């Protein structure tokens, strides 16, 4: 009969108290497990998006803002740059893919992103974030392909017609482009990427809409208007691709290089020798992650460890009370020949059992949380939450919990260690 089984039988002898203590440890461990897993997956997903393009080029400003606005569709663009800049980038020998991005309008808060048809065929890594759930890709101006979340929230279907409003945020005061309606021709699969929240169209659509705005404004001011599509209902937007791009602007260019190793050199070239600004998405996003999500992770982890610390306290109190009630048993064991060290060890082992079982139960609770979150998030935003797997962070966290549990066992074990056997037997 080992000390391990002796300790186990004492825990089993007070099942309810033991179960409650294990549960309190499990709550903390479950929270830590879920937070670490979610953080890892969030970071992986963010970085995956950031890795899709090696460089983003836009007008000068804040590089993070440029990345957020063009890759994640989350912030206001830094401004526009000449289409000529995009064309020169596209013809650069190190560039394998270059896609223009033009933004300025939105529909119900979802951005209308003007780009080239080729972007829809772009499949970075093993991912295909532009696959169609239904319909087809846009082929001419004023045709739109909706991200899955846009389609679901707006209720638009293939064949639906909608009108964009000026600006990138939903506002009742926003100017509506009634004269340039879009027709939905396709809906993308839910990808869990920013694409779910975007409306893609040919870049010509954006240019057309805004040239009209500019033209209308010009007309209002100096009546110099010679190309008003709105007054021509039969106007065929098929001619869009035939437009001369001279004088047009783009918000940004998404660039894929021949090798990621060229990123820094390419970025430096752009930043030093042109009026545009280049940013490396993965770098910007990692900086943001550390600043913003890193803090959120720390807060959640701190809460998790706080719960574990409180659980450790309950281990300490539970064991301490048990030792007080068990002075008789400990004295008998000493009378049977158990050394002080063996008594100390048996109590520490009890703390270890509670902690390890708490970790096992917590792991299960964390896994269950991830399964539930996965079910919810996959259907809502296409965000896949993986099952908990052992990462270095998780192993460190579990080790810390074991350590805290053992530390919690030291005081009761010391109490048992220094008990006066003769007195305890005399008091029986």
């Amino acid at each position, binding site marked *: 009969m080992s000390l391990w089984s002796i300790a186990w*039988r004492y825990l089993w*002898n007070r099942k309810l108290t033991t179960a409650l203590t294990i549960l309190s440890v499990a709550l903390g461990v479950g929270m830590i497990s879920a937070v670490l897993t979610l953080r890892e997956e969030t970071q992986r997903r963010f970085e995956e998006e950031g890795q899709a393009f090696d460089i983003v080029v836009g007008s000068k400003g804040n590089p993070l803002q440029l990345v957020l606005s063009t890759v994640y569709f989350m912030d206001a663009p830094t401004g526009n740059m000449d289409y000529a800049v995009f064309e020169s980038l596209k013809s650069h020998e190190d560039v394998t893919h270059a896609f223009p991005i033009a933004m300025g309008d939105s529909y119900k808060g979802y951005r209308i992103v003007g780009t080239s048809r080729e972007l829809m065929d772009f499949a970075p890594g093993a991912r295909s974030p532009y696959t169609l759930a239904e319909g087809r890709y846009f082929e001419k101006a004023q045709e739109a392909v909706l991200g899955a979340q846009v389609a679901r929230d707006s209720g638009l279907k293939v064949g639906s017609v909608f009108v964009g409003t000026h600006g990138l945020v939903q506002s009742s005061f926003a100017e509506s482009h009634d004269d340039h309606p879009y027709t939905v021709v396709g809906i993308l699969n839910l990808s869990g990427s920013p694409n779910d929240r975007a409306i893609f169209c040919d870049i010509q659509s954006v240019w057309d809409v805004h040239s009209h705005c500019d033209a209308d404004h010009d007309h209002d001011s100096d009546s110099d208007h010679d190309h008003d599509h709105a007054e021509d209902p039969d106007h065929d937007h098929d001619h869009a691709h035939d437009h001369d791009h001279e004088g047009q602007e783009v918000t940004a260019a998404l660039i894929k290089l021949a090798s990621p190793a060229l990123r820094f050199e390419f970025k430096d070239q752009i930043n030093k020798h042109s009026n545009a600004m280049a940013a490396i998405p993965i770098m910007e996003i990692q900086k943001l992650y550390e600043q913003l999500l890193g803090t959120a992770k720390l807060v959640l982890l701190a809460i998790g460890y706080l719960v574990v610390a409180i659980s450790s306290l309950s281990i300490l109190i539970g064991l301490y009370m048990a030792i007080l009630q068990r002075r008789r048993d400990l004295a008998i064991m000493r009378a049977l020949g158990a050394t002080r060290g063996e008594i100390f060890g048996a109590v520490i082992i009890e703390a270890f059992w509670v902690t390890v079982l708490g970790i096992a139960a917590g792991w299960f609770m964390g896994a269950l949380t991830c399964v539930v979150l996965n079910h919810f998030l996959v259907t809502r935003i296409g965000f896949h939450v993986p099952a908990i797997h052992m990462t270095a962070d998780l192993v460190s966290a579990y080790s810390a919990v074991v350590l805290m549990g053992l530390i919690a066992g030291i005081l009761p074990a010391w109490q048992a260690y220094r008990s006066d056997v003769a007195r305890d037997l005399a008091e029986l």
Partner: protein
Amino acid sequence: MLNRKDAVMVLLEEVTRRLGPGVHFSCEKFYAAPGSRTALWGPSGCGKSTMLNLITGLLRPDSGTLRIDGADITALSESRMDAFRGERMGFVFQTFNLLPPFNALQNVLLGMRFSDTIPEQEWKSRAVAMLNRVGLERRLHSKPGTLSVGERQRVAIARALVNKPRLIVADEPTGSLDPKTAASVMALLLELCEEEKVTLLLVTHDRGIAEQLPDLFDCTGLAREDAS
């Protein structure tokens, strides 16, 4: 009674121990031969339990000679004393002192767990044999709470003897039993000590119980107030 020191299982000479302010224990001389059965008799508070604690090493004397089975236990370190106790002594208590989480068999196994006297592979067969010997072959897996008081004391006797000790110390072993059960438990204890050739020291305040044993040591006055 004894002529040679090496024939002494328990020897106390000029043993003193302070028990508290103004009270001390003092035993001029006590000895018990190997295989003897001695009652330590006296009224409550006379010092017989203190004497038992000194003999078992749970209390250390302030002065005097205290030899058990040839060893000067006052010279043993605490850990050596723990091992010595586990190997050479068996305990029977008034309130049985079985450990509640463990069944009868496991309680007896614990008697061997903390010493190296019996090889581990023999633990179970030895424990079962002892429980059979005390008539509990059908209660091996019963928890103490489900046993009668007589059965509990039988388990305690089996636990005390399972380790083949040289000395059994029994503190009021029949104090919690009805007369009929007490008589049968006493008979069993004496019979087993005879069989196993174990020295028995039995503490009791009951003169009738004490007189069932061949030797009687009157403990009256061992614990007393300091002379002013």
